[in-house]
């Protein structure tokens, strides 16, 4: 039985910025470090976490049956094939949204806390009931955003709500970073985003085509391809969550050669 379980909400406000991919990869990375981890799909309307983990065909019961006491928690939990420390609690039917209350989410998370070191909650997009239910059951949060105006604006809304609900710590993951565009100052810099949102940066994830390949297969990147840039970033984030002091990747260092040197020169702050 785990006593000091960490319950982390993974949210963003805007959809499509990478919440579910981060949840899946963090889940795998933490499990590989020997930590028992449950990932809870709180996106009852549009569930996808099962698909990214490749567990969609192994779902028998969901959070819905657990809440309705039609099955036990361990009957609904789907253990990952390769990483036995990782279990998924699938989202129920979208009709659950009609009756689900913050207290229901708390009940589910309380049950998970008895067995796991980490509970990661994959939050739905938006700031409505789905988000509020998921937030009610969480202690801390990771806000995922992209270096784009709409994603940063929506993240700001979410951070405001997390602050008023005393969720802490709230940390930032900057996803889909394109070093070349940042170097050319055609993309908000890491400093821009952390300054505007005033959050500590837990990590950044480089844009990586391998992410799409891995979702096609239902095998999160962190499961095997350690050489992919994004996989390294996810692993680093998991280690930092565990308190390890891993330095951030400098996206400008990622592009090398004369072009990169020139771009760095052009980014020199004059005043």
């Amino acid at each position, binding site marked *: 039985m785990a006593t000091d379980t960490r319950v982390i909400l993974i949210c963003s406000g805007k959809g499509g910025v990478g919440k579910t991919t981060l949840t899946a990869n963090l889940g795998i990375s933490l499990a590989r470090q020997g930590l028992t981890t449950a990932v809870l799909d709180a996106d009852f309307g549009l569930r996808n976490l099962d698909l990214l983990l490749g567990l969609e065909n192994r779902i028998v019961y969901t959070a819905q049956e657990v809440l309705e006491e039609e099955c036990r928690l361990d009957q609904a939990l789907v253990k990952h094939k390769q990483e036995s420390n990782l279990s998924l609690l699938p989202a129920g039917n979208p009709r659950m949204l009609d009756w689900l209350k913050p207290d229901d989410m708390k009940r589910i998370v309380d049950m998970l806390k008895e067995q796991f070191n980490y509970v990661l909650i994959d939050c739905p997009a938006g700031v409505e009931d789905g988000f509020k239910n998921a937030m009610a059951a969480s202690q801390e949060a990771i806000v995922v955003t992209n270096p784009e105006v709409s994603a*940063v*604006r929506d993240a700001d809304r979410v951070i405001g709500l997390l602050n008023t609900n005393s969720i802490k710590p709230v940390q930032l993951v900057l996803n889909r970073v394109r070093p070349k565009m940042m170097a050319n*100052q055609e993309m908000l810099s890491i400093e821009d985003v952390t300054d505007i949102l005033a959050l500590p940066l837990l990590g950044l994830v480089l844009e990586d085509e391998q992410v799409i390949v891995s979702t096609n297969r239902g095998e999160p990147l962190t499961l095997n391809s350690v050489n992919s840039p994004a996989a390294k970033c996810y692993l680093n984030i998991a280690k930092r969550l565990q308190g390890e002091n891993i330095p951030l990747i400098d996206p400008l260092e990622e592009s090398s050669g004369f072009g990169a040197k020139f771009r760095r020169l052009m980014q*020199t*702050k*004059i005043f």
Partner: protein
Amino acid sequence: MTMTLRDIINKLLRRQPASASTARERLQLVLAHDRSDLSTELLDQMRKEILEVVAKYVEIDVDEGAVSLETEDRMTALVANLPIKRTMTGQIQLKEPTNQSEEETESTDQKS
């Protein structure tokens, strides 16, 4: 505001600035409004009323004046920049309108 070497070169060549700085400025403006939860109409009304109150005491340059919201570190500030033409209290009147003198009203509002 910070400027980089690229920004300066772009300015000299009269090219459009790199889009990241535009994004940053637009975001800062829109977030100041989002965080304060004030609608444009309310802000306009407040601006009008502030000017009316200030105009009771000093003659201000209405065209040059600006009342805006600024945000930094999740702190939103209402910043009024109102050039004073001359004061109205007592008998003392400034002989020359001094557009340089500014009155800055600042009220901070911690939004969470």
